[in-house]
C-alpha cells in the first residue's frame, strides 16, 4: 500500500489525466483569500473590537433595524419583480425573431455598464412628482420617488440583467421536442408552460433571483438619489454605513456591515442549498 492512511479518510483529489491540480487549486485559494477573505475578516475583526454589548446596542438600534429591513425588503421585492419580467424578457428574446431583437438584447446589459448614479438620477427625474411618469402617478395617489417604492424601482433596473442573463441560456437549451411531446399528450399551451417548461427553468430562475437580490442588497449609487433617504423610512443600510463612516464612527459602520454580511451569507447559502437539491433531482 503506497497510499498514506490520512488519505483514506479525506480524499478530495480525483485522479485525472489533466495536470496542474495542485497549482490551480493553490492559485484559486490564494486569490480568493486576497480578494475576499482578508477584507471580510478585517471587517469582522474590526466589529469584534466593539465588544458584545456595544455591538448589540448598535444592532438593535431602531434606525439600524429599519435600514436593514428596507434594504433586504426592497431587494427582495425587486428581485421577485425581476424574476417575473426578466423571465418574460428572456422568453421574448429566445423565442421570437423580430427586427431590432439584437438591439433589445444588447440593451438588457446597459444596467451592468451604466454608472449607477446616472441611473439613479435618471430614474429620480422620471419618477419625481413633477417628472414624466411621476406626474401621471401623482393623481392616482402613488408616490414613487423618495419612498421605498422608489428604491424598488431602482433595484429592478439594476437587477434585470442578472435574471435575463441567467435564464436566457437555459431557455435556449430547451428542447423543442419536449414541448411537442407534451402537446401530443394533450397538454394545452398553458399547461406546457406551467408544467413542463417552468419547472425546467426553476434552477436558473432561482440563481437569477439570488444574484439580483444580492446585488440589490448591496446597491448604493442609484438608490441614494431616488430614496429620499429619510431615516426610519427610506434609508438603506449601505447609506447608514456611509453616514457612520462620515461621523468617524468606524465600529458602528463595521458592525452594521457585519450584520449585512451574515444575513446575506445565510440567504445565499439557503438559495444554494435549494439549487443543489433541485440539481440532484433533475440532473
Amino acid at each position: 500500500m503506497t497510499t498514506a492512511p490520512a488519505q483514506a479518510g479525506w480524499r478530495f483529489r480525483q485522479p485525472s489525466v489533466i495536470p496542474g491540480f495542485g497549482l490551480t487549486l493553490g492559485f484559486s485559494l490564494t486569490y480568493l483569500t486576497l480578494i475576499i477573505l482578508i477584507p471580510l475578516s478585517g471587517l469582522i475583526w474590526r466589529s469584534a473590537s466593539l465588544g458584545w454589548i456595544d455591538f448589540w446596542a448598535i444592532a438593535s438600534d431602531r434606525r439600524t433595524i429599519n435600514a436593514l429591513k428596507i434594504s433586504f425588503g426592497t431587494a427582495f421585492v425587486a428581485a421577485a419583480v425581476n424574476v417575473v419580467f426578466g423571465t418574460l424578457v428572456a422568453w421574448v428574446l429566445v423565442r421570437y425573431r423580430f427586427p431590432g431583437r439584437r438591439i433589445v438584447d444588447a440593451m438588457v446589459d446597459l444596467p451592468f455598464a451604466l454608472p449607477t448614479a446616472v441611473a439613479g438620477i435618471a430614474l429620480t427625474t422620471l419618477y419625481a412628482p413633477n417628472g414624466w411618469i411621476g406626474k401621471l402617478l401623482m393623481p392616482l395617489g402613488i408616490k414613487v420617488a423618495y419612498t421605498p417604492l422608489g428604491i424598488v424601482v431602482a433595484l429592478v433596473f439594476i437587477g434585470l440583467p442578472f435574471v435575463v442573463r441567467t435564464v436566457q441560456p437555459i431557455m435556449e437549451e430547451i428542447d423543442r421536442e419536449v414541448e411537442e411531446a407534451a402537446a401530443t399528450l394533450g397538454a394545452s399551451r398553458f399547461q406546457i408552460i406551467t408544467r413542463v417548461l417552468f419547472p425546467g427553468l426553476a434552477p436558473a430562475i432561482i440563481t437569477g433571483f439570488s444574484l439580483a437580490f444580492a446585488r440589490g442588497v448591496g446597491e448604493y449609487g442609484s438608490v441614494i438619489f431616488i430614496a429620499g433617504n429619510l431615516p426610519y423610512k427610506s434609508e438603506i443600510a449601505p447609506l447608514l454605513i456611509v453616514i457612520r463612516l462620515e461621523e468617524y464612527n468606524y465600529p458602528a459602520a463595521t458592525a452594521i456591515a457585519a450584520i449585512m454580511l451574515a444575513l446575506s451569507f445565510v440567504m445565499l447559502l439557503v438559495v444554494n442549498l435549494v439549487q443543489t437539491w433541485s440539481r440532484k433531482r433533475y440532473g
Partner: protein
Amino acid sequence: MEVRVANVRKEFERFPALHDVSLDIKSGELIALLGPSGSGKTTLLRLIAGLERPTRGKIFFGDDDASQKSIQERNVGFVFQHYALFRHMTVADNIGFGLKVRHGSSRPPAQEIRRRASELLDLVQLSGLEKRYPAQLSGGQRQRVALARAMAIEPKVLLLDEPFGALDAQVRRELRRWLREIHDRTGHTTVFVTHDQEEALELADRVVVMSQGRIEQVGTADDIYDTPNSPFVYGFIGESSSLPVKVENGEIWLADRPIGLSAPHAPEGEATLYFRPHDVELLDGCSGCIAGTVAASRRVAGTRRVELEIGGERQRVEIELPVGHPAAQKSRVAFRPGRWKLFPAA
C-alpha cells in the same frame, strides 16, 4: 384506427418537402417509412401527428378529417428519437402526464393514473422504476418510458420518429424485437420512421420507401426486395449491381454481344440492367453471358464479393461467390443474373 393521407403536399418556405403524397394505412398495421435523409419521411410522420400542417391535401383518421384538428385533439402517441422525456418528473409522472393534463370528467382519479402507469411499466418491462428520474436511466430504458408515455393516452395511432436511432446496435436489435411483440399484443396502428432498411424490413408489415419527397414504393418486405419498381428502390434496398445495356428485338445486348436474357416487352433502346450480386448463375463457356476480369475480391462474412471489369468500357459490377468457388481465383469469370430487372436509361 385507419389513417389515410390524401394528396398531401408540404412546403417549407417555398421549398417542397413532400410532393402530392397519398398513403392508406390499415387499422392495426405496423408501417415503416424508409428513406435516406431529406426524403420527407419525418415530415410525413409529423404531418400525421399534427406537428406540421399540410400546405395542401388532407389526413383522415377513420372518416374524420384530422387535418382540421389541433395536435391536442388528434390523440396520437408520438415517440421522439431523443426521447423528449420531462426530466423534472419521475418515470411514473412522465407516463401519467397525458392523463393528468386532461380536464374535468375525462381525467381519471390520481390512483387510477398511478395504477395505469405501473401497468404500462410492466408492459415495457421496467417495473419498479416508477420513482426514478429520466437522468437515472439508460438510453434504452428512456425510450421504453417514452413509448409507455405515448401509449398511456390510448392513442388512435402510435408514431415513432427513428425510435432506435440514438441507441447502440445491440440495444437496437433487442428493442426492435420487443417493439414487434408489444405491437402484436396491443394492436395499435403504428407508423415508424427509419433510415435503417434492416429495421424496416424486419419489423414492419409494410414498408413505404420514400425519396426526395415522394413515395417510391409501398409493399411487404418481399415485394420491396424481390420486385423493386424503380432504380432508386433497387439501389436503396439491399445490394445491387447495374450495367448499361441495349434492347434489340427483345434481346438484351451488352456492348456488341447478347447476354442470353430476353426481354420481349421492354422498349427498344438504351436501358439499365439491375440485379442482386448474390443472385447470379456462374457459367463456364460464354455464349450469351456477362464476362469480366476480376479486379478486386473481398471476403464478406460467409461469401466472397468479387468486383469484375466488364467489356471495353471497363464497367465495374459486383457479384458474390461461394468462398471455396474456384472462379474467385480465376482472372476471367462468366455469369448470368438470376432475377433481374430493366429500367429505361435515365
